[in-house]
């Protein structure tokens, strides 16, 4: 297993590196980075010059890239002019909020998607299955931000039960958290439901489940012990990947609910033409995804004995 983990880590580093190349290339491709990074009122020529020096912008590309990587590694993602602080600091300050929201959304989608997926598969073609399939379809087709608006309309405006903006006191103020988390988890619920259902169906049709039934194992045990654990393997991988989609929709949800997270940070940066922030969030988001994927792979290695017992 050690070799497997080491290989995964190496692989993640390569991916990270490629990520920086992509971002770097994209920026350079479309114009002068210095101008992009200094498009704010009150900019002076000296600032432009300082920027060029700091990022090595008048050097050949390869050197520029070296400076870029060098800066990244030291945690220097540039300075935001909105907040007049290093981008990294701003990012780290807002990150916990997004993580809270993401975690809550994840929990909701797991609580809805997986049980329904299992029931759908076990009682295939029944009414439960129809409900499950419908929910999966809706999760995929109704955009998260529409759900958010509908929720606000219903619970915030018509019924007046829940507040529609902000984060409230502390991180886990449920009244403020529940609507955005639900809207955010909406899409994932659908995906997880779908995958759980098809994974369960595949496992339920396998030879070892067949044999378990021939052995006279009680049906309850067949489903929970034999089917569920095997079916969860691919679901686990997907659950980790759902994080990516959660971050996507999170941007819009955070804007709608004025939730002070990194998604909203990015939009604020975009609208204020605070480019370092936009680039910084893109890089950090990508890095986080790579990190989460790595963790999921390692977790997988522990659960599946076929990998755990490898060299």
């Amino acid at each position, binding site marked *: 297993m050690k070799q497997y983990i080491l290989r995964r880590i190496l692989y993640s580093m*390569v*991916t*990270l590196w*490629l*990520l920086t*190349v*992509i*971002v770097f290339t*994209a*920026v350079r491709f*479309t*114009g002068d980075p210095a101008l*992009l990074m200094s498009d704010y009122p009150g900019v002076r020529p000296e600032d432009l010059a300082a920027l060029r020096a700091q990022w090595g912008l008048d050097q050949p590309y390869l050197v520029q890239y070296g400076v870029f990587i060098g800066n990244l590694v030291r945690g220097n993602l540039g300075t935001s002019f909105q907040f007049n602080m290093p981008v990294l600091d701003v990012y780290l300050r807002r990150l916990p909020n997004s993580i809270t929201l993401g975690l809550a959304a994840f929990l909701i989608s797991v609580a809805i998607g997986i049980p329904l997926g299992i029931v759908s598969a076990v009682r295939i073609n029944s009414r439960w299955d129809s409900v499950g399939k419908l929910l999966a*379809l*809706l999760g*995929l*087709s*109704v*955009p998260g*931000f*529409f759900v958010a*608006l*509908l929720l*606000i*309309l219903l619970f*915030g*405006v018509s019924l007046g039960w829940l507040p*529609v903006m902000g984060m409230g006191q502390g991180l886990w103020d449920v009244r403020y958290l529940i609507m955005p988390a639900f809207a955010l988890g909406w899409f994932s619920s659908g995906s997880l439901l779908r*995958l759980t259902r*098809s994974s369960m169906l*595949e496992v339920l049709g396998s030879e070892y489940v067949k044999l378990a039934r021939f052995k006279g194992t009680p049906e309850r045990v067949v489903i929970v012990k034999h089917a569920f654990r095997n079916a969860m393997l691919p679901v686990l991988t997907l659950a980790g990947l759902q994080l*990516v*989609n959660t*971050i*996507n*929709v999170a*941007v*819009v949800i955070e*804007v*709608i609910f004025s939730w002070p997270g990194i*998604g909203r940070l*990015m*939009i604020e*940066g*975009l*609208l204020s033409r605070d*480019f370092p922030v*936009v*680039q910084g*969030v*893109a890089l950090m*988001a*990508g890095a986080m*995804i*790579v990190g989460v*994927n790595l963790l999921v792979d390692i977790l997988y290695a522990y659960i599946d004995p076929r990998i755990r017992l490898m060299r």
Partner: protein
Amino acid sequence: MQTQERVRVAPLVFRIQSFSKVMGLLREAPLVPLLIIILVVLSASFADVLAPHDPEISVKNASGRPVASYLPPFWMQGGSLATPLGTDFHSRDILSRLLYGARVSLLVGVVGTLVAGALGTLLGILAGYVGGWCDQVIMRITDAWLALPTLIFAIFLASILKPSLWNIIVILALVFWTRYARVIRSQVLSLRERYFVQLAEVNGAGTLRVIWRHLLPNVLNTVMVLFSLTIGVAIIIEASLSFLGVGVPPPTPAWGSMMADGRGPLIAGKWWISVFPGLCIMLLVLATNLLGDWLRVRLDPELRNR
């Protein structure tokens, strides 16, 4: 030689078969999603004729003065049939804006996905067929690209490029090609071992010829299914971008930006500005997803679990 003749004819027949297969399929397709899509396409194409008002300027009443803003839909108190679905802050007719907005969603969704599909399929075929270092390089790039969350990457690109319709299409293409590349690659990997490909190779067919005449027709099924499935996501991403203000610039009507405009009024109880475009997006994406599902079941077997 005889074998070469046979090999050359087969892909041509294949392509004719593919076309009539498509026509035959359309006849069997599920009715409701198809109707919805046709409806949207018609609205977009004939918006000039169908829309009661100009979507970008305020509606004027008989005396030439702008009609009230925030008029509700006609079935509610205060609404009028002249503006059946209500008006927004600038007294613009919602219905007209919906009809014109279909253009943006469709155009961006379809063209963006097409470009993404073409790019992704090409790279996927290259990676799968040529293999070796070409494969490795493309795959690593794909993985890294996938690490960038779609919307965040789109926003990032939007901050670099100037906002315009075509740039959005470019952004979508850049963001989505990876999905195609991955799937097509694995399909090509298995196709590569099949007899008719090996036969062509043995007969001296060059790489390009094999790709064009043999591989492409066979991945067509998968591409079609992928296309119908990713169009929905593309439409939602475009709507999200418009919603966030980084999509198609105003005053061009787009469903996403309409929803954004309506967000404030929504809190004050004026729901129609946001909800109608939201419903449109939902119905369109639902339709494409249902169609895609049906296509997948019909054309199987490559994409059973996506």
